[in-house]
């Protein structure tokens, strides 16, 4: 996902984002980059619109690049960071395919050996070329970090076996040890990174992208053997998800700064992450939901002076619900598509038998040809099924997890508020204690009380500042997230439709080849 934090104008007071006007995007492609998912009824709708759409070439394959990057700081980053972060892009590197950009292309670009399953997407033969390559060249200059996850390799045997992935980075940023490098990482390393980031960044209100969930069943199959189709599918699914995860991490301006991220990308050997036990089984959503419940149970309810947060939170919850619904139907689609593959293959065989049985020569031949066409159709359906799953279903899964993470950062803000309130109430108590001491006239204890008051005053101030800061970060993060999400969805759907388009063009060829056979029947 492209970074868009740089696109957001100067720090917001508690007001709407400037540039929040209704869709007065200059060019005809005004729906480019518009967030797909903003609830038209939400107060903050205008906020989530990209503010500089004009800069964005109305092109499928461009992210925000090349164009101006007056990077705005929001107090979280130091000014130095801004220069480094002009338009960083999480790019998929080592793409053998037509290079393009990130999130959309994870399917077709990982240069590692594709798993030999039917779920491999064949390099799109029909990629739009010239304009897109132009964009690519323009944008290359401004992309700072590209990451890719490739070459899954089973290490070891039996129940201790694991899969190691190659994590490759290509970057122009000075903070890295070189321009291109790669390391080997295993799944628990990715989890460990997430854990570290969560712990650290949680106080800041960032949306930490979650990695794919653990799967005991999936991994057990792999441990047993990596050759059967379902293991192959599992590994590919995980590889692609890990890649998207990393791309999102490096696309995030603050996270990229984090030394843990750098270490993850660069360091040859990582200490084995052990605390990932906590993230077993149910996964992140459950963890976040538990945290949410804890927040809700707190007795001090937040008095929201700014409805933006309430409204936005509601929006996020609604969206999550819709996505779950969509996910259920897409799962149904994937299953039905697999059924279609099966029934088409079976039908093709049956047709072939019928053709053999037929005593009219020309008709017999035509029926055999029909059987072959149906075989080819099955192949098309298989590819379509891969598309359904890897493009569509995984997109939804990613975003359901991400929305969970968004909810998580809202919770962080509430907790920050609670800490502030608690500090205030403690300060109040200290002041009362001091008053009592004044009255009781105990000078030495009084001195201590005064010191404590000073200390707590400072704490209250600190917590208040933290709360404000988190609030601003959350807003910024959410806006950035929405923009990314809109782009991501759009590009994935376009990719999905592209795949369908290719399918259909091949379908036409198959039937056109069959037609003369049918006409030749006499």
């Amino acid at each position, binding site marked *: 996902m492209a970074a868009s934090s740089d696109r957001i104008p100067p720090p917001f007071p508690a007001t709407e984002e400037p540039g929040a006007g209704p869709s007065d995007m200059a060019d005809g492609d005004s729906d480019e980059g518009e967030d797909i998912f903003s609830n038209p009824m939400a107060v903050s709708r205008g906020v989530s619109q990209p503010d500089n759409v004009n800069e964005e070439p109305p092109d499928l394959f461009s992210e925000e690049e090349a164009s101006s990057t007056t990077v705005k700081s929001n107090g979280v980053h130091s000014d130095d960071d801004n220069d480094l972060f002009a338009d960083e892009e999480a790019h998929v590197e080592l793409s053998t395919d037509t290079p393009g950009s990130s999130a959309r292309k994870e399917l077709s670009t990982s240069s590692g050996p594709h798993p030999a399953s039917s779920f491999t997407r064949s390099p799109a033969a029909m990629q739009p070329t010239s304009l897109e390559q132009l964009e690519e060249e323009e944008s290359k200059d401004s992309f700072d970090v590209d990451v890719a996850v490739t070459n899954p390799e089973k290490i070891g045997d039996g129940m201790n076996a694991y899969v190691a992935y190659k994590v490759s980075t290509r970057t122009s940023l000075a903070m890295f040890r070189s321009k291109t490098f790669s390391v080997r990482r295993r799944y628990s390393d990715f989890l460990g990174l997430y854990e570290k980031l969560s712990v650290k960044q949680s106080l800041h209100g960032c949306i930490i992208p979650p990695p794919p969930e653990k799967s005991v069943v999936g991994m057990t199959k792999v441990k047993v053997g990596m050759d059967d189709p379902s293991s192959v599918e599992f590994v590919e699914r995980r590889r692609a998800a890990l890649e998207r995860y990393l791309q999102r991490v490096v696309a995030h301006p603050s996270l990229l700064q984090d030394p843990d991220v750098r270490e993850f990308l660069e360091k040859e050997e990582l200490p084995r992450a052990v605390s990932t036990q906590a993230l077993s089984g149910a996964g992140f959503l459950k963890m976040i939901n538990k945290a949410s419940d804890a927040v809700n149970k707190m007795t001090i309810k937040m008095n929201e002076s700014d409805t933006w947060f309430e409204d936005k939170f509601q929006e996020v919850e609604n969206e999550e619900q819709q996505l779950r619904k969509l996910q259920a139907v897409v799962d149904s*689609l994937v299953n039905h598509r697999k059924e279609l593959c099966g029934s088409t293959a079976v039908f093709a065989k049956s047709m072939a038998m019928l053709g053999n049985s037929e005593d009219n020569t020309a008709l017999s031949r035509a029926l055999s040809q029909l059987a072959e066409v149906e075989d080819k159709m099955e192949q098309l359906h298989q590819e379509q099924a891969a598309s359904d799953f890897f493009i569509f279903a995984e997109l939804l899964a990613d975003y359901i997890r991400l929305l969970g993470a968004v909810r998580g950062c809202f919770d962080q803000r509430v907790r920050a508020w609670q800490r502030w309130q608690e500090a205030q109430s403690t300060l109040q108590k200290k002041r009362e204690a001091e008053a009592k001491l004044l009255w009781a006239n105990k000078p030495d204890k009084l001195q201590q009380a005064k010191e404590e008051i000073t200390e707590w005053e400072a704490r209250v101030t600190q917590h208040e500042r933290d709360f404000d800061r988190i609030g601003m970060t959350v807003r910024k993060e959410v806006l950035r997230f929405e923009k990314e999400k809109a782009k991501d969805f759009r590009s994935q*759907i376009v990719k999905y*439709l*592209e795949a369908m388009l290719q399918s*259909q063009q091949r379908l036409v060829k198959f039937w056109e080849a069959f037609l003369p056979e049918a006409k030749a029947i006499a």
Partner: protein
Amino acid sequence: LSTPQKHQRGNTMRSVSVDLNHDASLLIDIPDALCERDKVKFTVHTKTTLSSFQKPDFSVPRQHEDFIWLHDTLVETEDYAGLIIPPAPPKPDFESPREKMHKLGEGEATMTKEEYTKMKQELEAEYLAVFKKTVQVHEVFLQRLSSHPNLSKDRNFQIFLEYDQDLTVRRKNAKEMFGGFFKNMVKSADEVLISGIKEVDDFFEQEKTFLLDYYSKIKDSTAKAEKMTRSHKNIADDYIHISATLNSLSADDTTILFVSVQKVEGRVASDQELKLTELLRYYMRDIQAAKDLLYRRARALVDYENSNKALDKARLKSKDIPQAEEHQQQCLQKFDKLSESGKKELTSFKGRRVVAFRKNLIEMAELEIKHAKVSSTIQLTHFYTNEKWTL
């Protein structure tokens, strides 16, 4: 869908008919039909120059059961034993759309208004498709009869076409019903009987082998085609739900594109259903009718052989020889007649089948191409204008 629906003529998409209804002396069609609570009332319209009919142009209302009655009486007419009796039209089956409609009603609360409306539209279209199909299949049955030199002259056929009262009374002849039941009971013995016969005629030997084999293959293909079509339909339905949910999340042009692509999937499903599946289904039944002919001939051969044995016995005993001789002669005549007419029927059946397959396969291929092209054009146009591709 409890309100009556009329089917209007105008759609001449006929899945399996070939060269029917061209003889101006007797033209039959079903110009419209009413559907009332899953009971279909067909309007059978006849135009004729034959003097055997009272009027040159007339219509009568008929139910499915009337068609079955007509079919069964033809099957049980001795004179037609040497003919392939056109297969009876299957009962109108609205089970699938009705069940889906019911489920839709139950699930109405969980979907958006738009989704519900779309699903309802789809179901209504499905219902209409079933309706059109059943009208066609009943129509083709009658047209097969009217195109047949012998069957078109059948008395009961004329009654069916002309009798302007309710046929129910005639139908409810208990004896006929019992006869039909009995006939079905022995059907399973068909295969054994036909296969077991010592065939002297090469033509019939070949036909027998071919038809028995072909029947099992086409029955299998029909079932598999139906399954495949159902999968397609499921996918089309999924796309409706996806489109609706996507739409409620965002209504930009990619969603609209998605929706139109979804529509094409639906088209593909119904086209396959209409062309290929219907074709296979129809000829499966037709081949069953041809097998029935072989069965009757086989029966006649058995009777002839038995009559020979009886004659030998009679000669041995020197008793009732003339009767036995006459009986034997009758059996032989019957057998010869069946063989002669059977040969003609089976030969023309072959030709008919090939022509129908050709027509349907061509039409199916053309439709697949057309729909895929439409869909790709929609998408390409979108990509060119919105995503600014250059190729």
